[in-house]
């Protein structure tokens, strides 16, 4: 199966293209069937790829058989395959939810969803930094259109901000790439990592500027502090399946930060070694702070979840700033957990909003729920996971992050901030649950809008992985530790991907 590592890009591409052609383009029903088959095939092939990478090690796929550093290479390594599997799983679960008439708001929901998955998977798998830009654009243009899916004033308004910000981000990305290509003469990430150590003098300063520009772009995607203002409004206004899928979009930025600033501008980069670390420390800590303030101030459940996404981004950036194997391993575990948990919470917020009439997801007194027990249980489950309370995976993820802070100075900054942000989440969730579940006004309404079986299955599928991540915690942390070792091992993550190059 030598072509396995391109399947996560090809399957959504072909499904998306087929949906625009006659037998599928006319009826929604056929698009839905193809979507479910496509996302399921994607999930199976990514899981198989994960298994292959675990058994046989890294798989380097040279497109058109142009050997690296020439041409474009796809790299299926432990880090990228883990994230591809996560994206595919999320895509499948969210698609199940969307089938329940959430896809009727616009004409091209299914093809756009597929192209979005293609862009996300491509961004994870690619080993070429210009190709990373191209896949960023693929996932962005799909996300622009998905964001205004369903229409309405707030969506148009937040989409305008989101699109303009990301277009400026794309320009900066290209400026950064131009500088890096101009100084290093290559775009293959492994080759960049090998060559960056030889830079000296003015070329090193130029390359530093390019690297700093890239940090701005990835920070914009990852909602790092000065660039996070778009996130709460965008995520809160998007329709439920779109917001749930967007939960992995900030993680694409985080992944790029890890890939670029650990492998390329990492310990081996000579004059440019670890150039992002002095920036990442204050920005990561401030991101957690501003996210925590947002969590406390949120007037509704969707905004609350969006602010929690900012907090989790901040926690992951802290791991990138600590810059050690243990921290990267913690980041990978916490990344999987926080993506799934926040995605489930976005879907649940929609179910909650639909049952409360005019009040929607705002924390005000309203009519009681139609299915209080099920929704209440799911909400408590999500809340425990997001806060990081013991029985679920959030607890293990946060413990791993806290343990990875080794020096006293690191611990002195990281421990209080992460613990206080968890406390703030606990306060916010208790306040939300008290208002929404217990302080209802007793009026029942006739326009019953209960959660449909497919929606329950989709949310259940996401929620069941959280305890599973605890039960199989040992195996998963072994895997993430292995992946982190790979990322920090310069020989494995750079020289092994360049046939013929020797250290």
């Amino acid at each position, binding site marked *: 199966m030598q072509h396995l590592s391109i399947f996560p890009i090809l399957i959504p591409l072909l499904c998306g293209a087929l949906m625009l052609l006659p037998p599928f383009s006319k009826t929604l029903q056929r698009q839905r069937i193809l979507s479910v088959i496509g996302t399921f095939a994607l999930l199976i092939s990514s899981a198989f790829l994960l298994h292959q990478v675990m058994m046989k090690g890294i798989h380097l796929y040279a497109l058109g058989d142009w050997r690296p550093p020439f041409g474009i290479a796809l790299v299926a390594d432990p880090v990228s395959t883990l994230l591809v599997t996560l994206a595919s799983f999320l895509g499948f679960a969210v698609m199940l939810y969307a089938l329940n008439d959430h896809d009727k708001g616009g004409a091209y929901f299914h093809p756009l969803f597929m192209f979005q998955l293609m862009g996300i998977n491509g961004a994870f798998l690619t080993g070429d930094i*210009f190709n990373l830009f191209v896949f960023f654009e693929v996932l962005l243009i799909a996300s622009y259109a998905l964001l205004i899916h369903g229409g309405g004033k707030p969506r148009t308004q937040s989409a305008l901000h989101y*699109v303009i910000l990301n277009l400026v981000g794309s320009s900066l990305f*290209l400026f950064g790439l*131009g500088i890096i*290509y*101009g100084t290093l003469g290559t775009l293959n990430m492994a080759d960049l990592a090998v060559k960056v150590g030889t830079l000296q003098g003015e070329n090193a300063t130029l390359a530093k500027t390019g690297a700093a520009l890239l940090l701005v772009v990835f920070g914009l995607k990852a909602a790092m502090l000065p660039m996070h203002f778009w996130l709460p409004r965008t995520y809160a206004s998007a329709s439920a399946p779109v917001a749930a899928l967007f939960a992995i979009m900030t993680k694409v930025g985080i992944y790029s930060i890890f890939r670029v600033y650990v492998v390329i501008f990492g310990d081996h980069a000579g004059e440019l070694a670890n150039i992002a670390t002095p920036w990442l420390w204050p920005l990561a800590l401030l991101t957690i702070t501003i996210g925590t303030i947002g969590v406390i101030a949120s007037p509704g459940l969707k905004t609350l979840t969006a602010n929690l996404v900012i907090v989790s981004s901040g926690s992951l950036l802290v791991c990138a700033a600590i810059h050690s194997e243990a921290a990267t391993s913690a980041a990978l575990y916490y990344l999987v957990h926080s993506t799934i948990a926040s995605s489930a919470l976005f879907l649940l917020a929609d179910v909650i909003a639909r049952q409360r009439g005019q009040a929607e997801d705002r924390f005000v007194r309203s009519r009681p729920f139609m299915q209080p027990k099920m929704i209440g249980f799911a909400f408590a489950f999500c809340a425990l996971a997001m806060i990081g309370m013991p029985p679920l995976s959030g607890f293990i993820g946060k413990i791993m992050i806290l343990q990875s802070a080794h020096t006293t100075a690191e611990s002195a900054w990281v421990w209080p901030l992460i613990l206080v942000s968890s406390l703030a989440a606990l306060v916010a969730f208790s306040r939300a649950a008290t208002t929404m579940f217990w302080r209802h006004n007793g009026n029942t309404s006739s326009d019953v809008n209960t959660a449909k079986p497919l929606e329950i299955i989709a949310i259940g599928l996401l929620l069941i992985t959280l305890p599973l991540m605890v039960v199989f915690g040992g195996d998963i942390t072994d895997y993430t530790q292995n992946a982190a070792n790979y990322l920090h091992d310069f020989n494995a993550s750079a020289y092994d991907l360049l046939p013929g190059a020797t250290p």
Partner: protein
Amino acid sequence: MEGIYAFSVGLLTACGVFLTLRGRSFSVVVGLTLLSYAVNLFLFASGRLKLNAAAVLGRSEQYSDPLPQALVLTAIVIGFAMTAFVVILAMRARADLGNDHVDGQVPKPKTPILQKGNTSHKTGGGQ
């Protein structure tokens, strides 16, 4: 040649950044377009500027790097598509929100503090 080239890229970028920071969506779109022009020129220059050098081997004494040209083509295509999208989105926002401000609302004109009481009295009387 390098001086003029660098000056043009810098000027385009400066104008692009200035226009992108404006409040109305039209100037922002124009600013984004200028930024993408600047980016294209900049990317082209990343392979070094050379005269009389073809990108194909054996056609001239010197050869120039073909990769930046491929990158610029990709960037042009993507930039063009994105500009088209943002133009449509700006028109949609104009229709949905009733004005062409990026924030979706017309900022209130600043009134001097002394006149504030006056104007509020007037509008109060009018209602």
